[in-house]
């Protein structure tokens, strides 16, 4: 009797497992390679178990953490991921090496990088940075490349300043006076203000050249072979972002559970608001979230070549594709 | 005369790169006899014993046990080393059972025999102890019990009591004698102690520079007790043996 019961239970369990697997198999798996961990900035991706935006489009979305935009592109190229959530700088570097990639969505059309100095230092515009010591997150981070962009647009180069790697805790050296300025992001500055960094002068890279902060990049073959999946994927992402823009409070609350650095709900809300702001531009108002400003990306590629970060002349119109955009 | 139990004929051995350590030794032990081998350090006693055990193969000559050539160590030979060489992580009982457990699973009969041997040594209370908890003398007894577990017809012993105090040594000598006589075990016992050699042996060989120089029969009555040690006959034989060893030094 006992054995019969056990066998029935086993059969039921097996059946449930198979059904589950079959149901799962009906979804298309898409792995996103990101530049960071599961932080509150990307709450719209982290709440998939709660909101199911991707599942609604028949997509099983998996987020793969990384250590920088370069990592994200590497993971894309190695086949581990299907889509890279990365910065234009990493894209340019990969294209320079001859990789065949496509830009299919503009995640943050606003540039969120900045260079911050204490008010007492007297540094208020990019030209003032000449001869100064500036901190960056790491030598493979967007803070460095965007700092170089800022310097370049002001007629300076790396040789005119001293660059110091400070790691993620980059405002402490600024407060201690170990660096004259630090290259950071909008969210970094937000947190620093909360931790009492004091009065600061903020030089936004956006005012020099507004290159996007992050874009979705795919391999050329994926673009050619999986257009339908990618289209649905972008619809899902747009929906998730629209939700976060419409319901920042709800997002902040969910971030407490889902984000690794989401313990403080009030801080989550501020970070989410910043990301919401960076996701919109006049172009997205007109054509919908994700609309790509080819002009800005081309200007970025040209600037990159001028700085000497890449060797080739990149033609962005061969790389950017607006076909898959979800529109409004 | 009974056929020799252990028969060594013209046995020689040299360690590579060293002068010959055993040269042309002839020796035989009759069944049930107790032979001792004495000599200075470095005269080749231990090597000869190892040749008898089959731990070493002679370069020349033959070593036979009951008519069969000895090619490798086997269960027919019990060996007791200078140090007790017990295994610290096994209990006393398991140490004694080692010769069996290396060949097969021990049976109840094996266990009973081990316990009996230990009882004869007065170690019944220590079956579950570990060697480190025992004194030097007790460890030596366990080593002897282990050597006797498979009831080998011949026992080879390399100065087993050298590290013990005089009184323990005498006790162990008596126990050893009793056990070997009871079983009819032949014994080849290496020692540097003349009194010990005379007390235990039926025949004593004096070894020097790889050769057997002298051969003395000890005709003292058995069983031998403590009083014998201080008797005139005993001391006479000891003197003879001492003289024989002295002679070597001078020659």
């Amino acid at each position, binding site marked *: 009797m006992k054995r019969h019961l056990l066998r029935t239970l086993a059969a039921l369990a097996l059946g449930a497992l198979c059904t589950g697997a079959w149901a799962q198999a009906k979804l298309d798996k898409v792995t996103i390679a990101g530049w960071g*961990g599961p932080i509150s900035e990307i709450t719209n991706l982290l709440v998939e178990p709660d909101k199911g935006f991707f599942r609604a489009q028949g997509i099983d979305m998996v987020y793969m*953490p990384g*250590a920088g935009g370069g990592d994200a592109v590497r993971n894309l190229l190695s086949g581990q991921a299907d889509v890279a959530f990365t910065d234009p700088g990493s894209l340019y570097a990969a294209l320079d090496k001859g990789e065949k990639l496509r830009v299919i969505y503009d995640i943050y059309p606003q540039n969120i990088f900045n260079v911050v100095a204490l008010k007492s230092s007297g540094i208020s515009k990019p030209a003032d940075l000449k001869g100064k010591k500036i901190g960056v997150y790491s030598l493979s981070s967007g803070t460095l490349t965007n700092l170089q962009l800022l310097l370049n647009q002001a007629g300076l180069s790396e040789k005119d300043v001293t660059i110091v790697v400070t790691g993620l*805790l980059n405002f402490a050296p600024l407060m201690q006076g170990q660096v004259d300025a630090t290259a950071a992001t909008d969210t970094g500055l937000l947190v620093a203000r909360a931790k009492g960094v004091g009065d600061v002068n903020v030089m936004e890279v956006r005012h020099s050249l507004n290159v996007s902060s992050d874009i979705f990049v795919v391999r050329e073959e994926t673009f050619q072979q999986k257009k339908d999946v990618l289209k649905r994927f972008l619809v899902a992402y747009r929906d998730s972002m629209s939700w976060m823009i419409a319901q920042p409070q709800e997002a902040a609350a969910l971030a407490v559970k889902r984000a690794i*650095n989401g313990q403080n709900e009030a801080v989550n809300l501020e970070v989410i608001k910043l990301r919401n702001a960076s996701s919109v531009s006049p172009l997205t108002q007109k054509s919908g979230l994700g609309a790509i400003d080819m002009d800005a990306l081309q200007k970025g590629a040209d600037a990159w070549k001028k700085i000497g970060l890449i060797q080739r002349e990149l033609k962005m119109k061969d790389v950017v594709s607006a076909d898959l955009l979800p529109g409004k | 005369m009974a056929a020799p139990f252990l028969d060594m004929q013209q046995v020689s051995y040299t360690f590579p790169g060293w002068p010959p350590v055993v040269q042309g030794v002839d020796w035989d032990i009759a069944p049930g006899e107790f032979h001792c081998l004495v000599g200075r350090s470095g005269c080749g006693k231990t090597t000869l014993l190892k040749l008898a055990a089959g731990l070493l193969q002679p370069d020349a000559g033959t070593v036979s046990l009951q008519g069969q050539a000895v090619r490798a160590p086997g269960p027919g030979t019990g060996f007791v080393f200078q140090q007790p060489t017990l*295994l610290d992580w096994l209990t006393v009982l398991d140490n004694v059972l080692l010769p069996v457990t290396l060949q097969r699973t021990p049976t109840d009969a094996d266990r009973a025999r081990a316990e009996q041997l230990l009882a004869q040594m007065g170690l019944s209370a220590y079956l579950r102890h570990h060697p480190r908890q025992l004194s030097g003398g007790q460890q030596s007894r366990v080593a002897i019990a282990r050597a006797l577990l498979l009831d080998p017809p011949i026992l080879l012993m390399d100065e087993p009591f050298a590290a013990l105090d005089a009184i323990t040594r005498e006790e162990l000598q008596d126990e050893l004698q009793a056990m070997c006589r009871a079983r009819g075990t032949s014994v080849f016992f290496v020692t540097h102690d003349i009194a010990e050699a005379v007390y235990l042996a039926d025949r004593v060989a004096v070894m020097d520079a790889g050769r057997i120089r002298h051969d003395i029969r000890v005709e003292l009555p058995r069983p031998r007790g403590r009083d014998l040690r201080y008797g005139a006959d005993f001391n006479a034989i000891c003197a003879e043996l001492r003289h024989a060893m002295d002679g070597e030094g001078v020659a």
Partner: protein
Amino acid sequence: MTKYPRLFAFALLIILLLAWEWAVSAFRFSPLVLPAPSVIGAALLRGLQTGYLWPHIAQTLLELGLGLALGVALGFAGGVLLGESPTLRRVLMPYVVTSQVIPKLALVPLFIVWFGFGTVPTVVITALICFFPLLENTLTGIAQVDAARLELFRMLGATRWQTLWRLKVPAGLPAILAGLRVAVVLALVGAVVGEFIGASKGLGALIIAAQGSMDTPLMFAVLLLITVIGLLLYEATLWLERRLLQPYSSNL
């Protein structure tokens, strides 16, 4: 002080903590730079109570456990193999040493490409870090059996296999367990450091996240947690060692 060392160690800790607390307020250290013990303690307590820290603790312990098991198995097997065969040892030892000299943090991105992200690369890094002390100590341990015992086993007609498993390994157990003690500590470091790159869960990932949020008190709280875990693991290994090596000591 010699009579109650534990008590004095504890008292010393209290004194240091009080001095630290005072120094932070006296010198006005920003919590970004050096938080006071009270602030760290509050962050730790809050993290534990809200359940925030537990999944990360569990993840790191899982990686630690798996990595240690793998590393110990490999180290022991390797040590036995290389100890028994001098030829193999001469051939393979340079490769073993190479694997140790390469900075492991540099290998993590490579492992992520090979094994995917998540638990596996961290487990592999942990195993890579902690197998070496086991290998070295096993190798040395089984080689240090005295000649007399080896002869005893020959006398009793033991096979090579028996001599290895019933004499050499038990005789080398004190050395092997000492290697285990080192491996356990290294495994914790390995698991945490392996999480620095490409992990979303675990105490190492938390450290990186705390840095990104400039939450220095949380970072210190996590370090404290790691310290406590390390101490507990070490004590546990010592206890195991004491139990297993009891017959080897001369305590009557």
